[in-house]
């Protein structure tokens, strides 16, 4: 399994072959995203939730995604630090991943890793991502249930949270409830949720936890299981997964078309043209039109990649 996930990161054809072979085994795992601001306690909470689910007899894979340095591509993946014990359990598999150049979002490798863990028969896949920028919206396109972790004392930040995060949360956690202001944060969240009830008919719960003391985790697990039941019974699970597959299909075809385009048109394609655009010799739109016409000619002449 560990080697398979490395292949997801480095050698896509191997993974594609594997996933092709096991396509009937996919779609059984329940996929859970855990996101929230840096330092909110996501890793600690993920560890507690994992332990709770294991105690209830589930097997699980944990994917801990951290952003990588945009300059060197290197990364320090430190989330594992918070869950040394649960990682030893035979029913648990933990893997750290960097977001590898996907602009802070989740990479294709992450969604392939989710599929691999699913194919290997994991009951749950938990994905931790830090809730900044692209990753938090990407998580919706991968996960069945999204847990958003907030902490007390966000104050005005709650308002900022509202914009992006309210729409993606299926469950809210107020972690660090041992700190002052937990009730206030909980009240504010509940108030916001009342103003903007979810359209699906699911009542988004707000759960107070103290991850460092393992408090509130049982309730979180109950609500998580309840959400999955809700998704299944309402037919939403199927609809979400169909929408996800449609998106993946489009993404795949889009990147294939782009590859074919660049293959037919040759490398070093853009640089000179871009210089002309900047120098004002050509307009962006004319350049694109011209390239597109050339491409259409070449693809009809050569008949695309099938002919070579």
């Amino acid at each position, binding site marked *: 399994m*560990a*080697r398979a*996930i*490395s292949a997801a*990161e*480095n*050698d*896509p054809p191997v993974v594609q072959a594997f996933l092709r072979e096991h396509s009937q085994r996919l779609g059984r795992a329940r996929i859970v995203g855990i996101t929230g601001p840096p330092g909110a306690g996501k890793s600690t909470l993920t560890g507690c939730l994992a332990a709770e689910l294991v105690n209830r007899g589930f097997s699980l894979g944990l994917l801990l995604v951290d952003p*990588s*340095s945009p300059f*060197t*591509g*290197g*990364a*320090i*993946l*430190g989330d*594992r*630090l918070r869950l*040394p014990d649960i*990682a*030893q359990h035979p029913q648990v*598999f*933990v*893997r*750290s991943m*960097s977001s*590898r150049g996907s602009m802070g979002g989740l990479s294709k490798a992450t969604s392939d890793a989710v599929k691999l863990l699913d194919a290997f028969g994991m009951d749950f896949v938990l994905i931790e991502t830090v809730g900044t920028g692209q990753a938090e919206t990407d998580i919706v396109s991968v996960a069945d249930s999204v847990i958003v972790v907030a902490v007390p004392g966000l104050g005005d930040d709650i308002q900022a949270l509202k914009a992006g995060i309210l729409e993606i949360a299926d469950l809210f956690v107020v972690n660090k409830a041992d700190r002052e202001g937990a009730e206030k944060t909980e009240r504010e969240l509940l108030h916001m949720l009342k103003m903007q009830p979810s359209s699906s008919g699911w009542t988004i719960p707000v759960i107070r936890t103290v991850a460092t003391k393992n408090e509130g985790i049982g309730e979180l697990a109950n609500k998580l299981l309840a959400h999955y039941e809700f998704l299944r019974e309402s037919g939403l699970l199927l609809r979400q997964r169909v929408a996800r597959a449609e998106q993946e299909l489009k993404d795949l075809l889009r990147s294939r078309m782009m590859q074919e385009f660049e293959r037919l048109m040759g490398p070093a394609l853009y640089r000179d043209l871009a210089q002309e655009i900047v120098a004002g010799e050509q307009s962006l739109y004319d350049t694109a039109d011209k390239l597109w016409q050339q491409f259409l000619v070449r693809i009809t002449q050569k008949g695309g990649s099938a002919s070579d």
Partner: protein
Amino acid sequence: MERKIRVLVAKPGLDGHDRGAKVIARALRDAGMEVIYTGLRQTPEQIVTAAIQEDVDAIGLSCLSGAHNHLFPRVVELLKEHNAEDILVFGGGVIPDADIPGLKAAGIKEIFTPGTSTQDVIAFLEAHVRR
């Protein structure tokens, strides 16, 4: 996609300082590697489980407590038990010169003592990690 070198940096033993380990972790990251940092007081069992699940190319062990003669070889031994001896193990920390031959004989590929530049560690990994 380019294959990145993945390194687990761990601190077995009971001493409570991980400054050296963090310096190495940062240097490796800046050299474009992916570093899984597991922090203080790891048992050899935890380290080996993590290394296998994370499918790393190398494990860097840092130890200041003097227990390296026991802990480092134990990690190598456990890797063998799990058929993962292709993972390269290197060590650092306060290690007397007299101990180094013994550690190398036990399968630790290289020992970096205080004063080694992080460049040496990077060069070592780039040279020895299977590509």
